[in-house]
Each structure stands twice: as C-alpha cells, then as structure tokens.
C-alpha cells in the first residue's frame, strides 16, 4: 500500500507530563554546568544523579529540540573530544532564569507534598 498520505506516522505513546517537565529541568541543569552535546547530557544526568536516574534515550532529543525551540537553550556545532563534529548545547540567559524559577517551584512543591504526605489522621 505504500506510504499512507493521510495519517503521518503511527501515533506515539504519550509521554507523562510530569516526566516531560522533569526531563526538561534535568537537561537545563545538566547544561547549566557547561556546554554539552546530546550524548554528553545523557551521561552527565546519569552522573550527577549518582546513577539512580536512567533517561529514555529516544525522548532526549525531542526534549532538546523543544527546549531550543522555546529559547531556553542554544546550540552550535563544534568538535568533540575525538575530533568528530557534534552539536553542543548551552544555557541561554532566559534559560538560566527559567531553571531558577522551575527549581524554586519544584522545592515549593516538594515541601507541600511532603507536608501532605506527613499528615496523620489526627492532624487533619
């Protein structure tokens, strides 16, 4: 039947919103410590999470493209350690502000959640 013209590709599994937001933050944080290419970002996230977080490789690049589309990160082509061409991402000023704002929001949320989860039947 060949390429179906009307439907595009088969539908993708919807990423969990929370996961998407978290991934974004992780990427911004990783890049805030210094410019990296995509693979490097992956490694760094695993590194700073002490190996406790494993990122789905397939969802990394769409996230990177989205963040760049929105202006939080910017990219430039450069040379990797082994002299191969790679695209490097860095945090923009707007991105830095965004990371800060999101981090604050996360902390606040964590406090609120912790408070709720700590509540005993008597306190309610």
């Amino acid at each position, binding site marked *: 039947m060949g390429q179906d013209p*009307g439907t*595009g590709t088969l539908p993708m599994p919807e990423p969990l919103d929370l996961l998407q937001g978290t991934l974004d933050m992780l990427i911004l944080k990783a890049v805030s410590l210094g410019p990296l290419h995509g693979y490097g970002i992956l490694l760094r996230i695993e590194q700073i999470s002490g190996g406790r977080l494993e990122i789905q*490789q397939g969802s990394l*690049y769409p996230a990177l493209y989205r963040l760049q589309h929105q202006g939080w990160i910017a990219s430039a082509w450069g040379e990797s350690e082994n002299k*191969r061409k790679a695209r490097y991402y860095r945090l923009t000023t707007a991105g830095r502000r965004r990371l800060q704002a999101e981090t604050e929001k996360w902390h606040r949320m964590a406090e609120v959640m912790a408070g709720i989860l700590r509540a005993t039947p008597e306190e309610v």
Partner: protein
Amino acid sequence: MTTLPSRLRSWLASVLRRSRLEREMDAELRFHLEAYADDLAAGGVQPREAARQARLAFGGVDRAKEGCREAVGVGFTDDLRRDLRYGARMLRKDPGLTAVAVVTLALGIGANAAIFSAVDALLLRRLPVADPDRVLFGITMREGFDPFGMSVLEFAAIRERNHAFADSSVGEQRSFNLTGREVPEPERVPGAAIEADFLGTLGVRPQLGRGFVAADDRPGGPAVALIGDGLWRRRFGGDPGLVGRTLDLNGRSTAIVGILPPGFDYPNLAEIWVPLQSRFHGLPLAELAAHRFGMVARLLPGVSMEQAEAELQAISRDLEREYPQVRRGWSIKGMPLRQGLLWDLNHRVERSLVALVGAVGFLLLICCANVAGLLLARGVTREREIAVRRALGASFGRVVRQLVVESLLLAALGGVAGALLARGLLPVLRTLNPIETLAFAGVLRAPQLDGRMLAFLAAVTMLTGVASGLLPAWRAAGAADLARSIQQGGQRSGASAAGRRSLAVLVVAEVAIAAALLVGGGLMVQSFQRLHRMQLGFRPERLLLLHMELPAGPYHAFPRRAAFVEQVLQRVRQLPGVAAAGITVSAPQTVLNMPDAIFTVEGQPPPRPGEVPIAAHRLVSAGYLETLGVTLVAGRLLGEQDRLGSQPVAVISEELARQGFPGKDPIGKRIRRLRPGETFPWMTVVGVVKDVKEDRDNFRINRPVWYLPYAQQVNDYPLDLVVRASGALGSSGAKESAEHGDPARLAPAIRHAVTAVAPAQPVSDVTTMPELLTRVLATERFSAILMGALAATGLLLAVIGLYGVMAYSVRRQTGEIGLRLALGAPPAEIFKMVLGRGARLIAAGLLIGLAGAAALSRLLAATLYGVAAGDPLTFVAIALLLAAVATLACILPARRAMRVDPLVALRSE
C-alpha cells in the same frame, strides 16, 4: 515571559532550511549512536555488536526524529504539504469536476473582487485631504429643489455661531479663460475662488511654492493663483519655474504662487484657484443671500457629524426668523465630504452600491453551493478510500482537514482565475462607471488591482474554500459504516438520511438566493425603464449643447452680450446641417448654472411665510423653445418681437400656471420677479408650455419654470447654445444619413462661428443631449445592467446546480428505484415521486427566498423610481419564472429515473 518570538524564529528557520534541519538531525543522532557504541566497545564489546546494542538501546531513531520535528513545529507544515500534494493529485484525477468547480468559483470570486474594488474606490479609499472623515460639506436646500450652495448670510452666521467646527471656509466655482503667449490656444479651465484658509481647512499643502495668505484674500488684493498638478504637467510640462511667472487669466495678468499636490481638484474639478477677495459685510441683502459658495468645515475633535448637522439646522432656523424675506423655506444641510463629493444627498448612491455588493455576494454563495454540491457528490465516490484511511487510524479531524485543504486548493485556483477575471473587468467598470464625482475622480473613479483588493481576494478565496468544502468534508469523513463501505464498494443505494438532508439544504439555499437576486434585479431594471421612458417635455434627439462664459471685462455692458447672442445665432443658423438654434442661460439637465427667481402674481396676495413660490429662471433667445422642441399648450412662444423696449413678456410652464394661477387661464395675466431691494417690471404671460425637466436631481417632480426673452433681462449669466441638427429622412423612408443626424459633427463649424464673432472665446462642455441624458441616468442604468446581469447569472448557476443535485440524487437512488420498478410500481409513479420531491424543495426555497427578498428590498426603496419595493407583480412574476425554470431542471432527472432498468439497477447492487 513569552516564548512566542523564539518559537516563531525557530519555526521559520526550520521551515525555510528544511533540508539542513534533516541533515543536522541525522548527523546529531548518528554522533550519539557512535559515541554510545564507542563507550560500549571501550568496555570490551565487539564494534559491530556495540553498534547494534547502541541502536537497540536508543529505541526507534525514526520515532525520535519525528518527535524532534514535532517539537520544532514542522510537523504541521509537513502535514500541510502532504495534504496539498495529495489534494492536487485528487484534483488532477478528476479534471472535469476540477474545471467546472474552478470556473464556477472564478466567476463568483472575480465578480466580487471587481465590485469590491469599485466600491472601495468610491466609499472607502482615502481622499487627498487630511482626515477626510472629519470634514463636513455644507449645502443648502429648498423644498422640492436641487440643492444649492451656501450664501454669505448663512456662512457668516455659521462661522460666528458654531461650536462644532475647528475651521470653516468657503470657495466659489469659477472658470478661467487661460490665454496669452504661454498657451497656444485659449483654453477654458475650471477653477475656484477660495478663502485664504480653505486649503488649511482641508489640510492640503502645495507641493511647490506657497498657498494663499490673508493678505491675498482682501478685497482689491493681488492677482495671484494656484495651479493644479494636472494642468501643471499637461500644459507646462511640470516646469518648477512656473512658480513666480504670470499667466493671463480672464484677461488679467496673474502671478502663480504655488502648485497643488497631485489628485487634488476640489471643488468641482478645479485646476486653477484664486483668492476669493470678497467682503462679507456691508453687502446688499440680495448679494448676501446669493447661494454661490461651497462650504467645507473641519469638525472639532469629539464632535460628531450628527451634532454638527443639528447645529447647522438650528442656525438655519434662527436665520429664517431673522431674515424672513430671503430665508423662507431654506435649510442648511451638512454631510461628510465623501457623500458630498458623490452628490449622494439621499444616500441613493450609497444604497445602490451596497445593494450591488450584496447581490454579488449572493452570487458567490450560489457558486459555493454549486461547488459544495459537486464535492458532496464526489465525496460519496471516495467513501472507500476514506474508510480505509480511517480504519488505518486517521482521525476524523485529520480527514476533514485534508478534504478542506483540497477544497481550499480548488478555491485558490478559482481565486487566481478570479483575479484575472477581475483585472479584465476593471477597465470595463471604469468606463461604465456612471457615478460622477464633484472632485477627486483620480481616487473615487479609479478602481485598481491594489494591495487592498488582493487582500480581499485572498480572504474571499479562503472563505469560499471553507464554505464550499466544509460540509462535504464533514459528510465524507464521517461516512458512518466503515466496514460496510470497505466491503461493498462505492456507490450505495439508499442515500443516507444525512446525505439527503445536505442535498436538500443545497437545493433550498440555491433557489432562495436566486429568488432574492432576481427580485433585486427585476426591481432595478423596471425602475430604470420607468425613468428612461419618463416624459422630458422636450425632444432630445439630435440636440447639441455648447457652453460659453463671456468674461466680465469686455462684456460688462449688457448690450454687448445681447449682440453676441444675436450674432452667434445668426451665423450658426446658417450653417449647413443646422435645423434650429437657440441660446439659454441653462439648458435642461445641465448643472453648470441653475438660476432661480421668486415670483409673484399680480392681484394675488403676497406669499405667506412658509410658501416659497420659486420658478426656474431661464433667459432664452427667440427660437430657443422651438429648437428644444417643447410642446405649446396655450398662447405663443417667444419671438423676435420680444426685445429690449417692447412689452416684457414671459412663457411659463404648466406647473407654474398651476401654482400661480390655479384654475384660471394665465394668458394675458401679469407676473413678476421678487428680489429684496430690487423692483422688476411686470411681465405679461403670453404662452404656456408643457413641463420641461430642467432639473437633474429632482426628475421625480416638475418644477415651475419661466422662459423670459434674453434681450429683455439684463444679466451676466453664462450661455448655453443649443443646436438641433437636421435629420435627413428621405421621403421613401430611407435610412438617415449619419452625417446629417449626428449633431456632434457640427461642433467644429459652430466653434468657428463663435470665434468669428468673438475671437479667443472658449467654447466648452460640448455634448449631445442624448449623451447628457445617458450621463444623468447613468447610475440607474448602471445599477440596472449590473443587477440584471448578476440576477441572470445567478439564475443560470442555480439552475445548473439544481439539475446537478437532482441528477446526482437520482443516481444515488438507482438501486431503490430499480427495486420499486421490479416490484411493479408504474414508471409514472417514479416520475411523480422524483419530481414531487424536487417541487417541494423548490417551493420551500421560493418561500424563504421571496420572504427574504421582501425584507431586503426595503433597503432598495430609496433608489427605485415608479415601482414599489414590494411590487407584487414583480414578486409573482419571479416566483413563476423561477418555479417553471427550476421544475424544468428537475424534469430531466425525473425522466431518467423513470427509465431505470430494474435488472441493471439491482445487479449493480
């Protein structure tokens, strides 16, 4: 903080450099996989195995790429491009349908674009003055008469007492004989005398030199003038050195102080402006009350046009109290400048234009309905393809989107063709455009294919595409039973209820709109016909008119004027081809000069306040009335014996006889003119003629007119020479020789005759009476032709559409019909069934359409003459016409239904 700017930039960059996006994405992901594989290999895995593991761990590369594309927003453009390519392929596969649809849409879109452009030029486009919506145009009105200009009395009062205007100013129409060495041939140029702040009120500044200052405008001030851009380029080659030179205007050496910007020719197509240099105080009352001026005023910020108008009317009422002798029955009227320029006092022009826009919009709706019908029919043949796509996961919205893109593509093709059509129509519209404007013809009468029109075209095209495509797309995409469709193929017997409803809606809509269009067209055509056949009171055929203004200097003494008149007539009458000639101060239906006089009848009590006995004041030579071909009702016409020194006489019109001498015989009675501060001799009425339509704007009524011998009335009015060409009607009834019949051919000889009497006397505004009348009725003729054409086209399209829909509907029901026939139903019953259904829909459409037309036609009421907006005869005739034609369109499909072969129909089931 909004990410919109960044997203837009990113999207744009991705779309424009699509291949680069893909390459870089490729390279990036490849690098990632290689890096990962390297790391694995460093841990001891074989390179090839490492590569494989890397790919597995990554997951779907293509899926990731698609995700990236979505993230950047090119997914949407991708889809669009795919839809367009697919749509184009579908359209190519069915060239017949595509061609018909495109032509239909092109017709509708093109007509709309052309009309929009013309209406835009007249009603919307910017005029070459500052902020034209805040400029008021002032005139005065008298009950039952053509509007007049402003008098000093009124203007002075307005200036002193108003609170609505930042600025107000007057100007007077003048014309100038441009003579002298600079000018090879004497030319009469229209112009104006304006106050110093006239241009300032309009916000217009000269492009070279300076405007007028207060010092220029005092009585006895310098002879200075401003030249218009057109004249400057035409006669003086755009030479900037003209500023500072002098020209001979009306025999007076005048210094040119400035050139006005292009496109500005206000008032009255002026090309030369001089300062008014008039006193406004200390003038005798008669002069104060003379209505010579055109007034413009600029509204103060925050004041509305209505407020200004109300104030003008209040001032007018005050003046009526203060100066009853001259102000009885007068009122002051203000209107936006544009309306004044179109001389659209009763909004007739505006209404006609709006009706036109409405009609052409209706035509487009019919076109959309036709195309929608085509698409609906085609949607069914594509049921299978769509069902398969839906089954493979395409959402309802996705399919609808793709189908709408297809119809947008059709519309786009129609739009391009329509643009070409509009471009071809514009020159036609421009020449046919009857609407005369007092000024700024360069803007008002020049519709163009410009940015605005293209934007309008684009918008209309998009709307058309959606309007004609949405319903069919909806129906097609939602084809209910997918499984059955896929199994059993395209043509289905038993049209679904929803499908039948859609078709029914189309039929009713088309009939209704066609009905409304036909009513509109029918009314306007009838209106024009009544106007055309209206009794003029004189014989217009083979009449030639020429206008002359004798300059004040050499013709200051009235005997010189009278001598001029006699000599010119003597020479002209002797020319070959001239049957008769006469001179008047204002020929019927001309607007250059329209003098009036208040009259009073001997022995009758003086007119009461509120009564204004006014007659059109026409000073004519002997033989004029015969030349015009008026009908004598009683007594005699003016003759050579009526000259200076003999008994003052007058010939009056029937209306004047009715008003002045109700129920009595006016012959032998005496009548005279009333003017404050002056006494006129009594005149004896010697003749009564049938009413002549002297007025142009008030052709719906007959005004009182009196004709006085030119030689007996001292005046300095301009002259209209009226010449009747002889017609060579052979006794055998042979055709008229064109040479004899056409009065225009006499023009050069007549000019020559005039020049022989007075060298350097310009002759202007040469036209034949039939031409003039065509111009007078031009708006009505234009509307009638256009509306008639639109109605006829609409009818044709609707009938075609109707036939198509009915034929299609029958085709869809072939199976059901075959079944019925096989079960023994007589063919005649089938025929009745099909025809009956059609007839019901037509009836519904007629009802809705005529009801709508009755409501809408009320808007036309002001523009109609001699026929009421709700004229029952028209409505009935159109109902019958449409019913008959529409039924005919249904008969063919009904007959085909009758002839269905049951075996064939059932077999294809």
